[in-house]
């Protein structure tokens, strides 16, 4: 990011010199930066400068109820009219919550002179607005900001949403956002028995209060993270918020889009970070610290990132897809699995959660841009890839070998071992049988220069009486001798 800014500055400077030298006149009025209207009002007695549809609902497919939005000429904090929102009950067949946005009807507004969105609200009961804010435009708006869980009262009260950094809002289209669900009349928590209620909104506008003091900013939920990464991998900064002290002495925390923050990488030859908080590893070695500021206030939270170089992809599997039954590989179509980690009793193993081979622990793009997904088991004692119960047992009887790529992310000691076990008939009601293949430390050390151990185990080498037509589990067992491994390209094949 630093490099980019620098380049831009240099280019601008050159352009400016060129203009001045070659034209022999003042910069023309045409060169003035485009500015957008600074209209403050969003809703007074009518919508102000909003799109014709006025209210743009969240997606009904996601449960948003589009029926409860309207205006009310009988209720107003000021003037003659207010916005009336009838919040559905949580069991409403037309959607269990109501919410959406108001969008500027033009090309956006310049809000840089303001420091808060303010509005008045009252409820039929003391229901809670789940979220209220601005900056969301359902287009490409980079600057959403909102407050969560504002409990209304049955009288009109003024609410404010501090703008995290108004200097960013030179062309903002997202004028207002709200979302609300049913009223928890029994006070027993969100459990589906909430009832409908109504709230009114009035006098929604941007204001310059002058009394908001930024007291805390936070990225990564305030955590200082230490991570290892590889060239070309990316990481989006999240967990971003800011807290303001207001004139009534209250602290208000604002969910603050990462784009409000200014980022710096202490060593941009290791990793860069752009204005949206996207960190990209560019260097093959070294360490950098990513920090952020909001309104020049240092944010809590940082990333200390060390680049471990170019990602060591596993060798591309050579087997012909026609002869493959795959459990986990980006090169083949995978059989459905119950899990990549059953998290069984007594298992300490982490990683491999879920059953989606495209959403596991590590994903790094190949040079062609396609993803390379890798399971990273840590704290390994034993773990299985399961193909039973919720998915059919796998028939590998037409194959001859089991292929697995393993990259051990630690030193291999002489006493270390790994046992690969197959189990057939799991949860079938029929007989269950198992068989093992054991790798000693010598076998585990037979890796390529990237650390990958490519195993091609003849099925005939497995002990026991495994029924290869009904495989239910494939185990990795180390009893803790090996704790941190990457696993890729787990498939059966015939020569």
């Amino acid at each position, binding site marked *: 990011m630093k490099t980019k800014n620098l380049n831009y500055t240099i280019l601008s400077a050159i352009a400016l010199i060129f203009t001045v030298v070659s034209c022999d006149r003042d910069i023309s009025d045409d060169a003035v930066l485009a500015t957008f209207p600074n209209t403050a009002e969003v809703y007074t007695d009518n919508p102000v400068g909003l799109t014709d549809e006025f209210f743009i609902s969240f997606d009904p497919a996601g449960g948003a109820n589009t029926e409860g939005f309207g205006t009310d000429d009988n209720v107003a904090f000021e003037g003659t009219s207010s916005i009336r929102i009838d919040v559905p009950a949580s069991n409403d067949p037309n959607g269990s919550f109501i919410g959406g946005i108001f969008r500027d009807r033009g090309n956006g507004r310049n809000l840089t002179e303001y420091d808060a969105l303010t509005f008045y609200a009252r409820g039929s009961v003391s229901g809670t607005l789940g979220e209220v804010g601005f900056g969301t435009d359902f287009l490409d708006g980079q600057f959403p900001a909102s407050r969560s869980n504002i409990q209304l009262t049955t009288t009109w009260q003024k609410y404010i949403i501090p703008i995290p950094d108004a200097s960013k809002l030179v062309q903002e289209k997202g004028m207002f956002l709200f979302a609300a669900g049913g009223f928890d009349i029994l006070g027993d928590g969100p459990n589906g028995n909430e009832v409908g209620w109504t709230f009114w909104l009035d006098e929604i506008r941007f204001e310059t209060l*002058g009394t908001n*003091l930024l007291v805390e900013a936070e990225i990564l939920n305030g955590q200082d993270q230490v991570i290892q990464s590889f060239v070309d991998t990316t990481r989006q900064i999240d967990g971003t918020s800011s807290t303001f002290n207001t004139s009534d002495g209250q602290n208000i925390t604002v969910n603050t889009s990462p784009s409000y923050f200014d980022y710096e990488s202490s060593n941009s030859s290791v990793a860069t970070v752009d204005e949206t908080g996207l960190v990209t590893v560019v260097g093959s070695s070294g360490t950098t610290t990513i920090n952020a500021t909001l309104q020049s206030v240092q944010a809590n939270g940082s990333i200390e990132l060390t680049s471990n170089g170019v990602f060591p992809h596993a060798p591309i599997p050579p087997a012909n897809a026609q002869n493959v039954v795959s459990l986990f590989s980006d090169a083949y179509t995978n059989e459905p699995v119950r899990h990549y980690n059953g998290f069984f009793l007594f298992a300490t193993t982490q990683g491999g959660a879920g059953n989606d081979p495209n959403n596991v622990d590590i994903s790094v793009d190949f040079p062609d841009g396609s993803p390379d997904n890798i399971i990273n088991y840590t704290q390994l004692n034993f773990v299985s890839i399961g193909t039973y119960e919720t998915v059919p047992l796998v028939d590998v009887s037409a194959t001859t070998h089991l292929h697995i790529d393993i990259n051990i992310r630690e030193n291999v000691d002489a006493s270390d071992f790994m046992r690969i076990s197959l189990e057939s008939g799991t949860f079938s009601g029929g007989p269950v049988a198992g068989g093992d293949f054991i790798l000693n430390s010598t076998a585990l050390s037979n890796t390529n220069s990237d650390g990958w151990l490519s195993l091609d185990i003849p099925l005939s080498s497995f002990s026991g009486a495994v029924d290869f037509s009904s495989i239910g589990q494939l185990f990795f067992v180390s009893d803790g001798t090996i704790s941190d491994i990457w696993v890729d390209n787990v498939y059966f094949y015939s020569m």
Partner: protein
Amino acid sequence: MKIRFNKSKSLSILALASLTILFTCDLDETQEVVTLNNLIWEDNFDTEGSVDRSRWTFDLGDGSAQGLPGWGNNELQYYTDRPENVRVENGVLIITAREESFEGSDYTSARLKTEGLFEQQYGRFEARIRVPYGQGYWPAFWMLGVPDSPSEVWPFIGEIDIMEYLGDSPSEIFGTIHGPEYSGGESISKEYVLEGNRFDTDFHIFGIEWGPGRINFYVDDVLYQSLTPEDVADETNGLGEWVFDRPFYMLLNVAVGGNLPGPPNADTIFPQSMFVDYVRVYN
């Protein structure tokens, strides 16, 4: 020494009363905020390190030794003269309130005064101050009258609070006088709101101009309250006595908690400081 009033009730009533007074007294539009310009005493805090003991002395402890545990207001701090609580740095006096266990209290802070070192009747007393923020902070720049005899006690000696501020109302200060029949909850006071701004983000000047029969309170270049014996009579049904024709000394302190601000809450950040750029007296 200071006994406080119920803020929400009396401030609003008194604000109205004071407004009336402003219209009925002889404050015409040409009234100047300050007219006394002959500098006779100052501390600009230009000497780094500790406070100038020829100008300031300290109140120490939690008030118990003075017979006023919690300094008469159930305040929570223990006053010290340690550099952690009071020092001069970069040309500014820094009074720092800390959250720490100290001599049985949960907070420490400092309270400076000119008692016995500089006491004066009438004049213009002003200081340039930046305050902290947050529930429970109660900084003040104020004055107490010198007793005529050892038996004369507060409120008969009089108290002039040039600036008091509560950390949960960061845009507001108030100026107050206390005397017989108008002390504590019955004191005569007015708030001043800094519109569109806060007192904890920059320095502001707080002062009074005090002469026979009148005390004018100002913030920066705004005169916001003018009090006279007639006001005292009006406020007390004629029972109150104007006790401001005697020498007074100045005090600077940061209290924590107590009857008026209430205790700090989870959002209150410690330590924080009151910064004083200067204190000056003119006649």
